[in-house]
């Protein structure tokens, strides 16, 4: 099996692509973290029905 020589464009844009990957992974982490915090503290629980006699 042989690997092709990376295209010159890929070499040039390596840093840019890695930066974008880090940003996207960070975004996933943020959305996941926000969901965990909001769900565990009960932001999305339906309001309790008032106890009536």
């Amino acid at each position, binding site marked *: 099996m042989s690997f092709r020589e990376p295209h010159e464009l890929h070499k040039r844009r390596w840093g*840019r692509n*890695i*930066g*974008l990957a880090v940003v996207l992974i960070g975004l996933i982490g943020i959305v996941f*973290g926000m969901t965990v*915090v909001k769900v565990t503290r009960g932001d999305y629980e339906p309001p309790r029905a008032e106890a009536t006699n």
Partner: protein
Amino acid sequence: MSDATINTQTAQTAQAGEAQFGDYFALLKPRVMTLVVFTAAVGLLAAPVAVHPFLAFVSILFIAVGGGASGALNMWYDADIDAVMKRTARRPIPSGRVTGDEALAIGIALSGFSVIMLGLAANWLAAGLLAFTIFFYVVIYTMWLKRWTPQNIVIGGAAGAFPPMIGWAVATGGISIESVLMFTLTFLWTPPHFWALALFMRGDYDNAGVPMLTVTHGRRSTRNHILVYTVLLAIFALATAFTQVGGPIYLAAAVILNVLFVKGAIQIWRRDEAASEADNFAVEKKFFKLSLMYLFLHFGAILAEAALAPFGLGGWG
């Protein structure tokens, strides 16, 4: 867009040097962003309502991204001015590393993204204030006031003053006298800060045709304006000491800083051009440097009051 256009654009950017991740990051004006992050964090932490640390972190992050987005839109619109000013000629668009269209796309995308995410992370009042800040900076300041009136800095300064108010709104979901005073502190600080810069970077604004006060009303008038705004600022800065976010630490810091700042403004006011040129604008440059410390230390003192409050030391007890 045809292949030929893409190839031409690729050839142009390759000639100017391929845009790296750092060039796109530079569009967000990272130095301005640090001020936004710091003042927004102080507004959030000084508020009387605790916020979950993770939500506080992401809220500050989205406020910073919103501020950065408005910076990218400012660079897109002002590329012609930036190209002729020494201070800004190396920015990503005038240097040819990033195209104007790219900056516009990044600015619009990040604006919408940051506002929606802040609304989801915190509340919609904070998100609305962030949206208004972006609108104010890009449309009211950049597109309208900057090229039209010498009062551009005064009114445009409001955009930079909103972050502590947004931080406060993240925590409390509202607006109060304390957050308005923190807004006023940055709002009144902006004109003397930029006019001092305009006094010793005079060639830049002349060349760009931006109607800075130094260009339209002369340098004597600018010196008068610096003194008036500095005195007004000192009054509001000291008044903040007697609110919920103030306290003895803030009062001590505010007294020292405002005495120094007003003294600096009086020195600038008493000087004429011959005296300034003789020492290469040493007093104006010193005042500009002090102005950076001035804002940082005022907000630092508010933060100190908030940090010491749990130990019974912050505030007026």
